[in-house]
């Protein structure tokens, strides 16, 4: 098995509808139940981002585009086809956004300290 990061791209608006959020929740539950989910992170809107390039600190996301990274999953799959099958069910694909699937080289998670 291998791990893939699924970067979720969406239109940068803070106001997702309740139905949209519910679709994402159902999809996440599905992945947890199937055992594919390794980690999941939702991000605050890109307006809250701060970017650094060389010595320069700027307001906003690193790449200024209509779609921004709204969150990401790490999933486990046996190969790319299996990963694409899982990522292809992401509700973002039917909400005007999309996903990028990238093999994970390595990593670990530490919960935030209080």
């Amino acid at each position, binding site marked *: 098995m291998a791990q893939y990061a699924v970067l979720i791209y969406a239109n940068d608006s803070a106001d997702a509808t309740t139905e949209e959020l519910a679709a994402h929740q159902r999809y996440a539950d599905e992945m947890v139940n199937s055992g594919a989910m390794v980690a999941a992170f939702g991000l605050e809107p890109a307006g809250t981002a701060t970017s650094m390039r060389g010595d320069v600190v700027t307001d906003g996301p690193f790449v200024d585009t209509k779609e921004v990274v709204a969150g990401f999953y790490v999933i486990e799959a*046996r*190969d*790319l*086809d299996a*990963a*694409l099958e899982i990522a292809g069910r992401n509700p973002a694909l039917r909400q005007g956004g999309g996903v990028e699937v*990238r*093999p994970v080289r390595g990593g670990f998670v530490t919960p935030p300290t209080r």
Partner: protein
Amino acid sequence: MTGPAEVQAAVADAHRRGWALVLAATVRVTRDLDLAEECVQEAYAAALVAWTRDGVPRNPTGWLTLTARRRAIDALRRERVLRTKLPLLVLPEETADGFVEDAMRDTLVEQAEDAVPDDRLRLIFMCCHPALAREAQMALTLRLVCGVPTGDIARAFLVSETTMAARLTRAKKKISTARIPYRVPRAAELPARLDAVLGVIYLLFTLGHTAPAGPPLLRADLVDRAVHLTRVLRELMPDEPEVRGLLALLLVTDARRATRVDEDGRLLRLEEQDRSRWDRAALAEARDLLVDCLRGGRPGRYVLQAAIASAYAEAPTFAQTDWQGILSLYDQLLSVWPSPVVALNRTVAVARVYGPARALAEVEQLESNGRLAGYHYLPAVKADLLRRLGRTDQAALAYRQALELTRNDAERRFLADRLAGLTGPAAHDDGTG
């Protein structure tokens, strides 16, 4: 002892016919494309020596496969510890585990030469995986499936050998790092994935048929490779109508190879070509391939393209072409493949059935929606229609636009001749027809 010329010919033949089979079977053992390529190359080199000494074996491909796999197993033993860190290719479920262990225990080496597994489809589908860029798919297919040397691929794509080598390395790295699996897609994925494979082969054919730039109109080797690949695919997937359709399309198109240019390398229009020199055997084979495909169900893109090409080629003379039939095939094609290029080609049939004025209106509509901007055949088709309508000045302007966009030398000469001919006495030679 066998004569050196005979052995060289046998090895060259085994390379052309057997490369994909030998490599595909070796990849299973190595699970690493570079190592597999290396072992296969060594096996072909060893064949030159061994076949000279012992004679050409009864099953050359089987001999080469066993030799390549033996080398792979030796290499794996030497590097076993070192290689555990490398990402290996993902093998299908039924063989993934235990296969390499079997290889290490030598059970594979004991196999008869006839018992070699045919993994060519896995290899083809891996090379044409949609996670790879189209250019990488084409280069990988030529390198891994056809065994074409990197330098030759570089020349076909008009890039340096270093650039091509880097492109191949990047593609292979993506295959192993992203774990693009070494297997035939499941039934649900198959139509889309097969379409990608057919697209790659068709592009390779086109690249050989009309070189994008420079003097050689026809790069026979690429054309032959594409036809051979389609034949292999047909042998492996005999029930896929679109595979048969693609083979028919390539055969019909290539049947006119000898007549596309005159002795001076000047491009000839269909009506100027000597039909008696077309490859009748290829046309007949294409016709046979198409018969069943057109009968059953909703024909796909390649079947319909082949049917159109075949209808052009089957007419005893250009004047006797079944334009109405071709137009109705174009209508079907446009419904399964709504491409602006198809819509443009369709206007050629529209001009024959309804006259050039109606065709011109359709071309202008295509021009105004902008999806064919920069496509040199659009002004070329437009120029021809304007010429036939006697609108010489506008025709000249369109020919100049077409010339600006055309890179192929033979096509450039054709357009320049047409432009020059506009002012001559034969400007309206063929009237509306």
